[in-house]
């Protein structure tokens, strides 16, 4: 009773978005994320001031997981971006910037939250239905029969992460590896429902990036001494594998809740080791070639197996169990007694391999969807960044397999979309407003805020003081370097649009991105050949971007809707 304390009253603040503190923290966050965006984005170094791990990154997932935000509104914002990234891996910065921009732009207007939220939602559904429609002018079909577009997709992801510190040649090499690793996870004879395999990323730090490679099967890291002790197997047929998930160390298993009394002179160790040797004999008589154990194998059993030319590897760990089960087709054995013959699996071959300073035991599968991606990079932080990037790319490829479309990258989708919305709200506002109580003026205001939020995302691609333009035909993005001489004739400086689909050969009109221009219909008719011939397109993942767009608008709506913040101070 005496320890019961009265709760401290909470802190209650009205209209949180109007306070100076929230505005400044939001703009600080916005500055952090915008400066990271794109291939020329600036890197952030995160450390705690007491030494130890330093993270150099420009990726939202690494950045936000290390940032410690305290204000509840920022918590909502960062949490929703982190949740998006953990489900789609890509487009985290895009989501964050768009969300911040939307909040900022809309606040300046001073309309009621109801109107803003309703119209934002309409505009969002307009975007989504356009991006999903057949007439969409900023997406291209992904052709899985050739690697070209897939490579473009992977390359775009790699180049947008400057903290990986890759040269052009290295980028090419790693993108090819990632694509290969992905293709290896697709089962060969897939009908109907396909289950993708897994690519395991094996770290090799301190090596050249060019040394990275992809191998089918699984690599188990071992010390050189252990590896030397393993006897080479010479066998033409596939090797029979037994995979144990239970311990083979001779521990007496769970004896129940009661007590077990052992009489004097009775040695349980002997009893158990007898049992283990019996197991060994069964394995020998079943002609097993390779024994893998998740936990520990008793040394005497190990020696016994080695004597009979069976390779025994223990302490595999739980993470490798699932890929091993999948690859070898075994059933993890949980019994020390009789083993069912159908719980054995097989591998094609085993060999030892040395990469850098590390030694591996390599299990080569017959036909399986498991592969190992040996990833090298010069130092720890760059390797971490590269690993994250590879995971993102693999995930994006998986998402693309489900939805075989890609969006034009390099900012062209955003400018195209903005042009489309401007045109739509200008020419056909009735279809958007239908049965709403909002006026056309309100729609125009919000649409302008929405479009300029989209365009400012693109604007943050440029970090070196260059100019960004958009053409008046396709609505694509074109950029001019800052150091280029001031010439009256702009088109001379423009060679290619952001995604690389169009070049300035055509008769195009340009306008500066933030200048007001009359709405136009962004054209979508690009020749199919152009897509095929353009080998150097910048592409984005459709699924991730669509979800990013939705999450950004939904989160912005959520934050704009807040009327009070109640902080519990207990």
């Amino acid at each position, binding site marked *: 009773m005496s320890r019961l304390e009265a709760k401290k009253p909470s802190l*209650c603040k009205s209209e949180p978005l109007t306070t100076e503190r929230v505005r400044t923290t939001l703009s600080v966050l916005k500055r952090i994320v915008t400066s990271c965006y794109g291939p020329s984005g600036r890197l952030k170094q995160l450390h705690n001031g007491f030494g130890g791990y330093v993270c150099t990154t420009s990726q939202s997932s690494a950045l936000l997981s290390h940032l410690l935000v305290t204000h509840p509104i920022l918590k909502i914002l960062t949490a929703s971006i982190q949740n998006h990234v953990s489900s789609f891996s890509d487009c985290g910065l895009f989501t964050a910037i768009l969300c911040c921009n939307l909040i900022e732009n809309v606040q300046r207007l001073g309309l009621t939250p109801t109107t803003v939220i309703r119209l934002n939602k309409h505009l969002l559904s307009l975007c989504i239905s356009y991006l999903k429609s057949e007439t969409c002018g900023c997406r291209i079909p992904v052709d899985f029969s050739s690697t070209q577009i897939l490579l473009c997709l992977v390359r775009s992801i790699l180049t947008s992460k400057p903290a990986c510190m890759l040269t052009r040649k290295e980028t090419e090499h790693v993108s090819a590896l990632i694509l290969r690793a992905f293709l290896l996870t697709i089962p060969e004879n897939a009908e109907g429902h396909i289950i993708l395999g897994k690519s395991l990323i094996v770290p090799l730090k301190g090596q050249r990036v060019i040394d990275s490679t992809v191998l089918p099967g699984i690599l188990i890291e071992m010390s050189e001494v252990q590896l030397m002790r393993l006897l080479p197997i010479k066998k033409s047929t596939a090797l029979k594998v037994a995979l144990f998930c239970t311990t083979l160390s001779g521990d007496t298993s769970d004896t129940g809740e009661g007590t077990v*009394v052992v009489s004097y002179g009775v040695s349980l160790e002997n009893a158990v080791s007898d049992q283990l040797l019996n197991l060994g004999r069964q394995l020998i008589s079943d002609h097993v070639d390779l024994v893998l154990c998740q936990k520990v194998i008793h040394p005497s059993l190990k020696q016994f197996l080695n004597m009979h030319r069976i390779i025994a590897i223990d302490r595999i760990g739980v993470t490798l169990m699932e890929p091993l089960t999948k690859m070898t087709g075994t059933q993890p054995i949980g019994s020390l007694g009789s083993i069912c013959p159908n719980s054995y699996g097989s591998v094609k071959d085993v060999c030892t391999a040395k990469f850098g300073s590390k030694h591996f035991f390599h299990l080569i599968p017959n036909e399986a969807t498991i592969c190992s991606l040996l990833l090298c990079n010069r130092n720890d932080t760059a390797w971490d960044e590269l690993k994250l990037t590879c995971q993102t790319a693999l995930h994006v490829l998986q998402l693309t397999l489900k939805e075989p479309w890609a969006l034009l990258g390099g900012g062209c989708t955003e400018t195209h979309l903005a042009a489309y919305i401007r045109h739509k709200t200008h020419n056909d506002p009735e279809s958007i407003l239908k049965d709403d109580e909002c006026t056309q003026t309100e729609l125009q205001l919000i649409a302008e805020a929405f479009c300029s939020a989209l365009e400012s995302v693109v604007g943050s691609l440029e970090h070196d003081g260059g100019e960004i333009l958009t053409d008046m035909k396709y609505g694509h993005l074109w950029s001019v370097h800052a150091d280029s001489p001031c010439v009256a004739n702009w088109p001379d400086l423009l060679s290619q649009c952001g995604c690389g689909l169009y070049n300035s050969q055509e008769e195009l009109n340009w306008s500066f991105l933030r200048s007001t221009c009359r709405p136009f219909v962004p054209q979508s008719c690009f020749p199919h050949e152009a897509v095929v011939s353009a080998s150097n397109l910048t592409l984005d993942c459709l699924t991730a971007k669509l979800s990013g767009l939705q999450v950004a608008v939904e989160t912005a709506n959520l934050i704009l809707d807040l009327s009070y913040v109640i902080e519990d101070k207990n």
Partner: protein
Amino acid sequence: MLSSMAAAGSVKAALQVAEVLEAIVSCCVGPEGRQVLCTKPTGEVLLSRNGGRLLEALHLEHPIARMIVDCVSSHLKKTVDGAKTFIIFLCHLLRGLHAITDREKDPLMCENIQTHGRHWKNCSRWKFISQALLTFQTQILDGIMDQYLSRHFLSIFSSAKERTLCRSSLELLLEAYFCGRVGRNNHKFISQLMCDYFFKCMTCKSGIGVFELVDDHFVELNVGVTGLPVSDSRIIAGLVLQKDFSVYRPADGDMRMVIVTETIQPLFSTSGSEFILNSEAQFQTSQFWIMEKTKAIMKHLHSQNVKLLISSVKQPDLVSYYAGVNGISVVECLSSEEVSLIRRIIGLSPFVPPQAFSQCEIPNTALVKFCKPLILRSKRYVHLGLISTCAFIPHSIVLCGPVHGLIEQHEDALHGALKMLRQLFKDLDLNYMTQTNDQNGTSSLFIYKNSGESYQAPDPGNGSIQRPYQDTVAENKDAWKKTQTYLKVHSNLVIPDVELETYIPYSTPTLTPTDTFQTVETLTCLSLERNRLTDYYEPLLKNNSTAYSTRGNRIEISYENLQVTNITRKGSMLPVSCKLPNMGTSQSYLSSSMPAGCVLPVGGNFEILLHYYLLNYAKKCHQSEETMVSMIIANALLGIPKVLYKSKTGKYSFPHTYIRAVHALQTNQPLVSSQTGLESVMGKYQLLTSVLQCLTKILTIDMVITVKRHPQKVHNQDSEDEL
């Protein structure tokens, strides 16, 4: 010393507190309401528009504020909805009362009474008012509800007898509910989801059993997925368990499942027993026996077509291995709630490994349509196609949202909607009684008249109306007799009996002196007391006047007095009420009944209607206090639609809507609501009574004293004794 710690409990102080609370809740009330972000002490963030939750999250310190919050939470225990409206209505009532004192203050000032003395005078005045409020709540409100409002009621059921839920009405009801609970860009989607969910889960037309099951196991029936847009939320046929298979073997065809609550593998020793190992061979043979036994059990399960083993405990490796070998999938470590849900759906008792083996069939198995892994945002779940043996067809809700706080809000709202619907069904029993209530409400009025005006014969027109009800009275009486045989049946008592029975759902609180939230369980004793009171009408009346003048300060006594005054007032009220059935509509009104699960259109319809009829009633009132109370309540009621229509302009603004409604009522035209959606009348009614009770509670306090002791022991009622 004392005065420094004590603060005068006054309407003004309560109003100040209520206004602060009103400012917070009024921005999240109604369809235009906005969100509030709450942080928990753990640092998690939560979005909410749930009034009860917000009031709790504030951790208020002010004693009156804490009392108000207590009243709100006890109201929420009865009806899950209406916390925000509670505060707004209370605030408007206090404002109305405060305005009256302001008006009357000037003459008091001239009298030049000491401030302290004036305070006491005020207090006694507040007590009068609180008594009048209580009288109003118990005696007048019901009559107005029954006689006037009920003709506007709609029903949620397409047929009241079979309680068939009408889909379109349910949609409207849920939409209106979610309008006040979730963000405005999601409420349509969420209410549609909920509606779909019900109609997918229900086998028969009426859903009360389903509502109960879903309410009890709501946590197990929904899965939250962060990182996806809200629009990705969906309903999945079958049950989704928030676990992964520990062993998964794809299977099809005739599939059966078993539930186990202990490990299948026999153990060396059970708790409390001792296993003595005498030799190594003994150890080996016992291990061998355990292995063989486990193998045999799993084989046996396999032979019975069991393809799925659901376990509430972790099974040893050996069991998993043999399950895998025999093509049995295993799900382990289920919570007891999950197990009980599954058992409730399929009506299956746990499987106990048999001691002696026979090839006979295992009794406790159930057929499963499918069992497969379900991947939601790269997390694996177990998806079961159970074949239900009850009215509930298993479906799970997948709730998506960008952040967990939002999903939690949606979960909370869905659960609240379930409770609200359950309430609507639970009230059904009461409502069946109110069918007679409705009719007897009038007949009881005649009785009042009889007792009040010395058994005057009713006029012929009314007598003819009265007769059919005496039939029902007789029926009711028979039922009543079984429990209360000691009731004397004579001409005067018969109808009060019925009147008691019908009024009990409403009027119980008033009959108990101190506790305002009395349950119906005290029915018998209450009715006895009531009878006694009616019988000894005259002596009590005397008692009233004496007791009141001498011992007006003590609460218990004053409540008893109140009891008596109630009865006296009844008498005086009668001439007015008796006229009512004669006002042209008597015939149609009498045949109308208050249907089960009755609802009204949203948008302040209930408040405007009640306001209108209260004003009408007040005009006919003879007693000034009653008129005043009715007027205050009537005007305070309008506060709620005023907040709802705050942002509307032009034709839809509040004055326009109000004038339209009043005009429609005066010309007997149907009311036209600008908003679609329905709300439960029962909830509104209960809200009204709760607020009035809370207000009487506030008004009876004259001083608040801070005591530096255990804070949880500070009790407002104690303060008077200590003085």
